[in-house]
């Protein structure tokens, strides 16, 4: 199968695409239903708020502990992986990651790669690079398979095809999979995918997977999945390539347990996934299965920029559960594609600026009401609203003295906004002037414009009261109340 061209879209398109989804009543109902379902599933897994709070605190501490030691842990991870017979590669950006993987494919004269679900492979646009080099890279996770067949990108990090209905998928399979008739029977549809993929696992030269946790102490890669396709990708083909972000490293196996428990509960409301793979090297002598060769590609791609700043580093605590998007009222309204980033929703708004630069993404941190639902459900307690505010500041200002500028620093600066807030500060830090303003605004309220940019599209104009609270209090004083 030929990989469809990717639909990579820059963040500046955000507003237009968001408006389009918001105006579609069918999509609106479908997203709302899906997110309600996921929220209810998660809530059912956490009946005791105090216990949840303790678990989140523990998970937060494990992630902070791991990040604090990340450079040493990565070295330890590499040393132990090498000892286990795994080749370790370091990629500073997408191009390097793709070149490394392509190099391995070329060494094996590979024609077909089967892929388990990996958001980092989406982030570096691996499928696109493989397609350009004439290698079939086939997604084997059911959701990813659907998205790939449709020539789209995932709209959710856990449920990539959440934007598609049963009918969409029935139509897609009937059109794209040879010999398949239109059916809306979900079991039959899943069987179609299974039949296609089963054979491909046998034929594939390379199996590619992501990594949920990389354990430094043992040199193990942990992979969380439900479909078994991850296990197939990492055991059937002769060569297994794992790809992951550098922040996924933890020190010990016992650190994985609390994180795993929160990951599955937060993501899909499952107490545990169907499969949990701990991969500690390729096939050993005397073993009957497993890959003969194994690689790990560790990707930076902007993570070091977040790492360098104490506050922004908290972004890297993320274990990619997707609970923030499931609970986000903005994501629920616009879906994942509107963001134009690999990672949508609240986590996407805080991580994408490091990967793609603020020039392409400066709109995203601003596209939030700061309602705090994301931070409230985050299993590792990332203060997402605070990080959104921080990135709003970085997007509209030059770097502070002594701070290295972020990529695209100040890209969202506008003269209008900076003058408006200077005006705000001038007025509201001068009480006498403010009182005069309130006096004038109430007396001249008939001059209130009937059209107020953005606000009056869906609301009546904001109009000052005839008398301010100060006026009312002064009147009362005069009456001698």
């Amino acid at each position, binding site marked *: 199968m030929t990989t469809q061209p990717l639909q990579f879209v820059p963040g500046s398109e955000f507003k237009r695409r968001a408006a389009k989804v918001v105006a579609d009543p069918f999509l609106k109902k479908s997203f709302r239903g899906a997110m309600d379902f996921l929220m209810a599933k998660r809530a059912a897994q956490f009946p005791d708020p105090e216990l949840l709070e303790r678990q989140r605190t523990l998970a937060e501490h494990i992630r902070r502990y791991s990040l604090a030691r990340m450079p040493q842990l990565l070295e330890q991870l590499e040393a132990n992986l090498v000892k286990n017979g795994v080749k370790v590669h370091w990629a500073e950006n997408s191009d390097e990651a793709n070149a490394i993987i392509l190099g391995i494919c070329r060494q094996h004269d590979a024609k077909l790669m089967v892929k388990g679900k990996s958001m980092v492979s989406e982030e570096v646009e691996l499928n696109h690079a493989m397609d350009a080099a004439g290698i079939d890279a086939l997604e084997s996770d059911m959701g990813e398979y659907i998205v790939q067949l449709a020539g789209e990108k995932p709209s959710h990090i856990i449920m990539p095809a959440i934007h598609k209905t049963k009918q969409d998928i029935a139509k897609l399979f009937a059109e794209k999979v040879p010999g398949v008739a239109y059916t809306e029977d979900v079991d039959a549809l899943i069987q179609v995918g299974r039949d296609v993929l089963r054979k491909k696992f046998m034929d594939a030269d390379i199996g590619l997977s992501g990594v949920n946790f990389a354990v430094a102490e043992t040199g193990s890669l942990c992979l969380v999945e439900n479909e078994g396709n991850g296990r197939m990708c990492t055991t059937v083909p002769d060569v297994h390539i794992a790809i992951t972000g550098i922040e996924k490293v933890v020190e010990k196996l016992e650190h994985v347990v609390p994180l795993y428990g929160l990951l599955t509960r937060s993501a899909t409301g499952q107490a545990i996934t169907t499969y949990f793979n701990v991969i500690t090297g390729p096939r050993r002598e005397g073993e009957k299965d497993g890959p003969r060769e194994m690689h790990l590609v560790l990707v930076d791609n902007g993570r070091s920029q977040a790492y360098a700043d104490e506050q922004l580093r908290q972004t890297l605590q993320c274990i990619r559960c997707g609970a923030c998007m499931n609970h986000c009222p903005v994501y629920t309204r616009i879906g994942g594609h509107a963001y134009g980033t690999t990672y949508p929703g609240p986590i996407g708004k805080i991580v994408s600026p490091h990967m793609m630069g603020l020039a392409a993404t400066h709109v995203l941190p601003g596209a939030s*009401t700061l309602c705090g639902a994301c931070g409230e459900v985050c299993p590792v307690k990332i203060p997402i609203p605070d990080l959104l505010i921080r990135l709003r500041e970085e997007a509209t200002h030059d770097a502070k003295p002594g701070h290295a500028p972020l990529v695209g620093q100040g890209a969202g600066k506008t003269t209008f906004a900076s003058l408006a807030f200077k005006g705000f500060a001038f007025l509201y830090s001068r009480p006498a002037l403010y009182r005069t303003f309130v006096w004038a605004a109430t007396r001249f309220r008939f001059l209130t414009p009937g059209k107020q940019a953005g606000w009056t599209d869906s609301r009546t104009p904001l109009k000052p009261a005839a008398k301010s609270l100060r006026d009312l209090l002064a009147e009362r004083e005069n009456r001698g109340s």
Partner: protein
Amino acid sequence: MQRNIPDGPRPTDIYFFATCLVDLFCPEAGMDAIQILEREGIRVHFPENQTCCGQPAYTSGYADEARLVAAKQLDLFPEDWPVVVPSGSCAGMMFHHYPKLFAEDPVRKAQADALSGRVFELTEFLLKVLKVQFKDAGQPTKVTLHTSCSARREMGTHLHARELLGQLSGVEVLMQSHESECCGFGGTFSVRQPEISAAMAGDKADALKKTGAEVFLSADGGCLMNINGTLEKRRDSFRGQHLASFIWERTGKNNGGQA
């Protein structure tokens, strides 16, 4: 964030920080809040030099501008009295964000920390500090309640309004679907992303109206302006009222109130 409210003698004096929205757009809510407090025997002080908590600049990423405005508010409250705010988001700004905003200024930081400890959202102050007992004086009615996200998640006070309303025997509080979801105001978000904001405000207005309540209540001026403006634009007669005004009216204004 949960707050620790120490048990102590009932305060005799408080500062009232009205917020810029209440001052200019819904002054009657501020007046009603002051009158409720006074009826409880509290001397209410209104610092004349108060303006705005600085939140619009802070949440937009203009921390320097927010600091200029916030610093002026820090000087308004020389006595060690509680500061009562009739709006969850402004209270949240002073309680939760002021200490962070002044983290690098030792003098202001000390002031911000001290203030943070005595800032109360109105419903929290009435219920937890004054331990009010209201007596209902109105006809039976059904209402529904919208709690602002700041009140809920920064001040942890979302249950207080419900508990206060529970004291009013003739008031039935109906639950709306997606109760904890944001109304889509978000300050400058409402004009930066008008389409998404409108979708959220529309859904919230629908959910509140669908309860069949006669009125919806909120203790946050921003949410009220957003949802009421949306309803008015639709020419829908359903409206929201500030919780303080509702309580003041229900409890017979000056004539009673105490059980």
